[in-house]
């Protein structure tokens, strides 16, 4: 994710999270990626969930490949699938731009529907990775896989910022402080970012 890339558009939005419909099938950014949305009011989110399903909820996909040699062939033989299936991802809001500063807490207003969702550049990722203020909010959130999202974000940051020294240690300290006596939970998260 060296250059900023347009990923899709917001189709559902609230104070805590927004849902993005991808322009291309199966092109959701990986779990834990940092993304941003909006042109004037920029809001940041961490990808917490993604899904692919039929655009029309009343049309359930059926198995098509029994006699075919590969999964790719299923899509080649049924080109309409790329138009009828749809990938979406959900992002937990972790910050917003205020003037020229990035705040690592909730935005006063949620993103607008049809706002463009983009990947973030290294500098933006660095700000969130070194602040880590938002981790507590994610861990306390109602996201069922909150611990995995946190671990995935750390792995994402480590991959994008290989030159930032001590990042893993800072994360471990921050998580230990946030989780207090929940040692099993802390260990489980740390195991996922080793």
């Amino acid at each position, binding site marked *: 994710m060296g250059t900023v890339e347009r990923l899709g558009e917001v189709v559902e939005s609230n104070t805590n999270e927004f849902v993005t419909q991808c322009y291309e099938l199966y092109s959701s950014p990986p779990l834990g990626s940092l993304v941003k949305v909006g042109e004037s009011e920029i809001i940041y989110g961490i990808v917490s969930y993604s899904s692919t399903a039929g655009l*029309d909820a009343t*049309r359930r996909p*059926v198995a098509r490949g029994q006699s075919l040699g590969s999964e790719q062939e299923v*899509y*080649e*033989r*049924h*080109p*309409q*699938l*790329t*138009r*009828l299936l749809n990938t979406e991802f959900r992002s937990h809001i972790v910050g917003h731009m205020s003037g020229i500063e990035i705040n690592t807490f909730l935005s006063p207003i949620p993103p607008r529907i049809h706002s463009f969702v983009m990947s973030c550049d290294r500098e933006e990722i660095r700000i969130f990775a070194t602040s880590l203020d938002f981790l507590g909010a994610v861990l306390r959130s109602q996201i069922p896989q909150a611990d995995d999202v946190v671990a995935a974000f750390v792995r994402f940051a480590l991959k994008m910022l290989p030159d930032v020294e001590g990042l893993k240690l800072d994360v471990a300290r921050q998580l230990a402080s946030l989780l207090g006596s929940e040692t099993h939970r802390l260990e489980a998260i740390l195991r996922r970012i080793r």
Partner: protein
Amino acid sequence: MALDLAETALQLDTMAVGLKNSVNDTNMRSESASTLLEDFNAKDFEARIDLSSKVFNWSAPSFPLRPAESIATSDNPVDYLAIGVDGSHIDINRHIPVRCFLINTGVARLRYGGNPNAYLSSTPHLFSGLTDTAIFDKSNINRSIPIQGSILGAVRTVEEIKTLATALENIDPVESQLPVIGLVDGTLVMLDLLRAGIPDYVIRNILDDGFLTALNKIRQMSKNRKVVIASYISLPGSTEVMDGIRLLGCPFPKSDCLQHCGTRSSGERPCDAYALGLLDRDVFAKRLSRGQRTEIFGSSSELVKSYYRENEVKFFYVNTGDEIARVEMPKWVAEDESSVSLVHSLVVEQCKLGSGYPACLMEAHEQAVISTSDRSYFLNLVEEVLEGQDMRFYTSRKDHSKRIRWL
């Protein structure tokens, strides 16, 4: 309870027993009909048609030289374009204060082979006002007929074929090198215009100025590139071939129905031994294996004979693997062997891809369909826009009563 289901179930039971008892008779008739097809002699058949014209009560189609022939499908091209078009409409609602109807056409353009892709779209077209919702007689503008019911069905068919022509026209230059099949759902014969009492100027308006003009446009395109079009009829209920079989099975030298059988009731006529209760598909179901088609027959419709000219409708039956379907095409497609072969192979392939129904038509239908909730939303929109213009929206008391359903 509005419908007495217990009583209905009893009547359905009786119906089912009756149907079961007739299965053997039907099978025997089907075998006899099949034998007649095998023994077909074109010269005798034509002579019989000439001799019996105007006195034979049924309308036999033109038969091919070998109507009993089953033709296997050839390999379909790997790279091709399939364009399906379908339509749906909201009819005039006489219970509201505005006269309007809506036609929604759906297009599915599917490219197969090396660079597979798909384009799906739907286009609504609202018709309102006096001129848009009626057909006028060009020679006497005081004569007109409102577009609704079956005439609206015909107008929708025109919109579908026009949409197909536009979709074929809009194919980009690279894709235009590929073989293309355009498919519409249902018959090419405008059956909606066969209803008694439809004036000739209406038929001419719909056919000459609409349907046939669009077909001619496609025919012109087909001269420069490999474009074929056809219509697909799933589980067809036609008996045209059976009508021809009645003629073949008639024991009288001149098939004068009134003279020989005028006093005989249904089931007692000699030709009933071959055709009573049978549909064309019943006979071909026993003759065609998976993928095979019949030879090409010509439509017997008077409407086709009178108006269609170079777009005269030809048809074959095909075993798609899931059912016997009827495929109709204009004469200019049917007269070219390679075009027929392309229609045949691509229809079979499309049915395979669509689990028994052409994939491009299935997707076009999905684009065109207007759901119950959309219909209701359309009505609300009409109400909103009228009130936005300070016009009062009202419904008939009958409609109001149906909606309220008070106790």
